[in-house]
């Protein structure tokens, strides 16, 4: 019986997070992350890639997609980097001004009105 050849990666997620399954840091999907230093030798490859990726502000969700890792794992990894001050995180303006945006119902009404024009 010949099995299909594996195309994925051999590393399981718990080896990436070192067994942690919970992120305590306040990252959400759209938190923007910026690296504060260059990767150094001996770092975990995911950390290296995050630091390279985040030379420009990058959203957590984007990092997750680039690294092909679940959000939770990325948040744990970002938590590590944040704890050693290698990155800074900031919430996007959109998220901050989210509260002041008009209601969805109102927008819908406006849209309907525009369609009816």
């Amino acid at each position, binding site marked *: 019986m010949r099995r299909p050849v594996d195309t994925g990666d051999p590393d399981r997620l718990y080896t990436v997070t070192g067994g942690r399954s919970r992120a305590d840091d306040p990252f959400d999907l759209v938190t923007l992350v910026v690296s504060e230093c260059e990767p150094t030798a001996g770092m975990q490859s995911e950390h290296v890639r995050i630091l390279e990726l985040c030379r420009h502000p*990058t959203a957590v969700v984007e990092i997750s997609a680039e690294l092909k890792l*679940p959000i939770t794992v990325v948040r744990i990894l970002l938590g590590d980097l944040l704890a050693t001050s290698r990155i800074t995180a900031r919430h996007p303006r959109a998220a901050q001004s989210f509260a002041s945006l008009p209601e969805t119902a109102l927008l819908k009404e406006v849209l309907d009105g525009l369609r009816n024009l």
Partner: protein
Amino acid sequence: MSVPAPTSQPRTAKASRTARAVPPAVLLVTAAAAGGVSAAAPEPARGWTLAVAGASWLCVSCAVLVTSRLSRRARRTADQQAAQIGTLNAQLAQQHAATLHVANVALPAVAKQLRDGAGADEALANAASVAEPELRRITHTFATLVQDAVRQAAAVRSEHHEVQRETARAAAELEQLTQRTLPAAIARLREGASADVVLAELEWPSLPLLRTPAELFIREMAHSERRAAAAQAASAKALSRVQAKAVSMLADLREMQERHGEEVFGDLLRLDHSTSQLGLMTDRLALLMGGRSSRAWNKPIVMESILRGAVGRISAYQRVRMHCSTQAAISGYAAEGVMHLLAELMDNAANFSPPIDEVHVYVEERTAGIVVTIEDSGLKMADAAMRHAEKAVAGQATDLASLQGTRLGLAVVGRLAAKYGVSVNFRPSSRGGTGVVILLPPQLLAQQREPAPATTERRAEAVIPTPGPAPAMESDLLGTDYPDHPDIPWVTEAEPVPARPASATPNGLPVRAPGRTMAEAELERQQRKAADDTPARDESRPGARGARDAGAQFGAFHRGRRAGAGGPSGETESEPPAPE
């Protein structure tokens, strides 16, 4: 042989002649004496004297005559007897000579002829003729006896020779059997030949005393080999099912980890870990049973992933500290084997060290290959245990018979090490425990390629002109039909980039990764098509690229959002504008 009788003949003749001359002389003397007496007698007495003298002479002459007659007769008798004695002597001598002849000549000759193989009659006829019937009888009897004896001796000798020959043949066959046939037969049986084939192929002893037990042995051996092979094949088959199940479970778990949120993530990880350990156990058994590993990789795996893949399969993975700074990668074909090997050795190190101590794994790149050192701080291995471990990992004892109970890991290490040419050495660790030094030879390493940063670099510079992330996102979100499929052009173009500059060995020979040809052909076709369609498109490329990169960014964003849809953060719900 000497005949002494004739020497006495002349003396006897002289004596008889003397004896014959005596009576006349006596008669003459007595006659003369009687005449003298009668002449000398006085006349008156002469007549009387004459008468007396004459009478006495007569008496004397009678006596002489009688005596001489008697003596003559006696002499004659004596002569006759002497002659008889002579004859007898001669006969005796003749007989003696005959006897001597028989003893010295005839019998040895007969014996010799008989010994030379002639028959008794022939030998008797050939031998010097023996006149005397007694001697002839004796000779005959002798010949018969000797012939019998010779025949018997010949029979015994031939029997003896035959026995000797047989013994020698048996010894030769036995030697052939033990020195050549049996080892060859066992080797053939190990290769999987059946008992009948082996019995037909090889030359077996003709002696039933040897042949029967040898045949019995071969049949029994074939039976046990077959049983062992069948058991192995059955377990390998069964294990391959378990392996396949474990692999699919791992894939499912990974997929669930992507899909589900943080609340079940920990549980999924635990399940994942258990399944990975299960995978290691089944792989271990499968390898021992002659089966395959459960996985096979079709691309080079970097050392970090190798180590993680290895450490993820052992129970105490959190105690293992890895120190790996090399970018080297192991070729796909060897990756699984190396991972398994390292997993076994790490498991060993973790199991034989105190549960609070860490196991350290160091990876160094050397010209001889990659050196992985696993050090624990447990008890030092005893010399005997170290020797046993060395022997097990040397891969020489590949026989299942040498397995010991539950200690299967090192045997698997031995097999894998022998298969991939990895050298594994144990030594006392400076940390107090045992160190294992694993040398992965250079032929297991994948060709170094330009690593991925090329794409990110390019992406990064493309992103620079955009004023800020958030507006760019918004505008692209509204204006672009962003791609979320990997087969659209910007992805296919981006992918060959890392591969392009890499393809040369240190010697300058081109290197082509498997499957590259198709991809390149496809790419070339697309490029040609694009050039034919819109030749002016090249000028607009930088701008287009910027747009594509923004698209890529959003593609990633979108994929990530979809993947994390079940995530805990509530904001995501309202993030994308729901198109009506």
